[in-house]
């Protein structure tokens, strides 16, 4: 009996040491080695949202033919009818709408169905649309406190603009059916990141365009 208690005690001690009571010596493997065994975390919940038209702006990012087309981003093209509906609702409720383009694109490259109307601002920048543009001023001059972020790529313009908006203190609404990428894995981890990343998650509400009420 004594011997088995001793063995048991050593076992408990070893388990305590290995479980992180003290730092383990090194990681067995890096994430690339573990890649195939990693499972997706559970999906976040979507929320219904009612927005205040006076303090909310709709951002429609990079819905341009060079980025959003059947060949490279069919999921973006598939999102356009829902985005057209959302845009119409926003305009009906006098919500500010801001568009963007990337690189050497112009507003004429935006899909006609959801193109900017005269007077609606268009900014041009890569990924983070606050960088090297006056987007922050455009929004703050109108008293905007919340942005609805839609666009393509989910892991480019949407991810970086929504993240920067959160950094700058804006609340962010992400209708996930309006953020598209070339494959679902990208959309999945961007959505997950919005729900769980430090700081950003506290500022972002995940929803769908049909769950937004004005």
């Amino acid at each position, binding site marked *: 009996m004594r011997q088995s208690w001793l063995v048991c005690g050593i076992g408990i001690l070893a388990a305590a040491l290995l479980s992180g009571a003290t730092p383990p010596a090194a990681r067995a493997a890096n994430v690339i080695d573990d890649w195939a065994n990693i499972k997706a975390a559970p*999906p976040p919940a979507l929320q219904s949202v009612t927005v205040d038209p006076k303090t909310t702006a709709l951002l429609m990012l990079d819905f341009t033919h060079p980025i959003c087309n059947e060949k490279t981003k069919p999921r973006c093209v598939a999102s356009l009818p829902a985005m057209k509906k959302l845009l119409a609702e926003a305009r009906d409720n006098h919500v500010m709408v801001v568009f963007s383009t990337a690189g050497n694109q112009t507003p004429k490259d935006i899909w006609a169905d959801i193109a900017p109307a005269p007077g609606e601002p268009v900014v041009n920048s890569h990924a983070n649309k606050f960088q090297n543009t006056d987007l922050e001023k455009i929004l703050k001059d109108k008293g905007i406190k919340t942005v609805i972020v839609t666009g393509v790529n989910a892991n480019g313009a949407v991810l970086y603009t929504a993240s920067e908006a959160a950094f700058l203190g804006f609340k962010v609404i992400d209708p996930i059916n309006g953020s598209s990428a070339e494959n679902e894995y990208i959309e999945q981890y961007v959505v997950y990141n919005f729900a769980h990343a430090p700081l950003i998650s506290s500022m972002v509400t995940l929803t769908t365009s049909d769950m937004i009420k004005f």
Partner: protein
Amino acid sequence: MKSTRPLMAAIALTAALSAAGILSARAANVIDDWANIQAAPPPTLQPVTVDAKTTALLMLDFLHSNCNSEHGKRCIASLPIAKKLLDEARANHLLVVYSAYGKNTEKDIWDQVAPTGGEPFVVSFLDKFIGTDLNKILKDKGIKTVIVVGSAANGAAFGTASGAAQRGYSVIVPVDGISSDNLFAEQSAVWNMANAPVISSKITLTTVDMMKF
């Protein structure tokens, strides 16, 4: 035999439509499809030779408050790796910059990877370029490349690597130096750094052992 024909035709049609990319359009949103989504293939790691004069090492948020046995086990496991990198960087006279978030101070950094006198220290959430003079600290020393390690992989490491890439720096990320206890989050942060528009062209993924000074 006859009865299998419509099925075969349907399979052939499905294959043709899939190849044409038509079925990849969304039937439902990503939450509905969640359980069926597979991770993209892993990115390739590259050997790196560091130019000591124009490269800085960023040691991000190795703090007791986020890097601990309760919710930072992989971060604790990365500490010996980060220490090895830090020792090599100091031996080669690299600029080393440390960070914390919130109300943490330099004293909250784990001893083995803590700053010594005079090494810069910045405080900010996620992207350490925002609300700090990190960009000036780097520019003043002629830094063109930053090595990013720290925790969380999908927080400070991802935010700062993205911020550096968008500011024109080349970025080296040893994947064994960044961590999250949520492996899905760590995996996606790594994949995104290798594949996201704009930033991925500036980022090289490697491991500490694949870096030469």
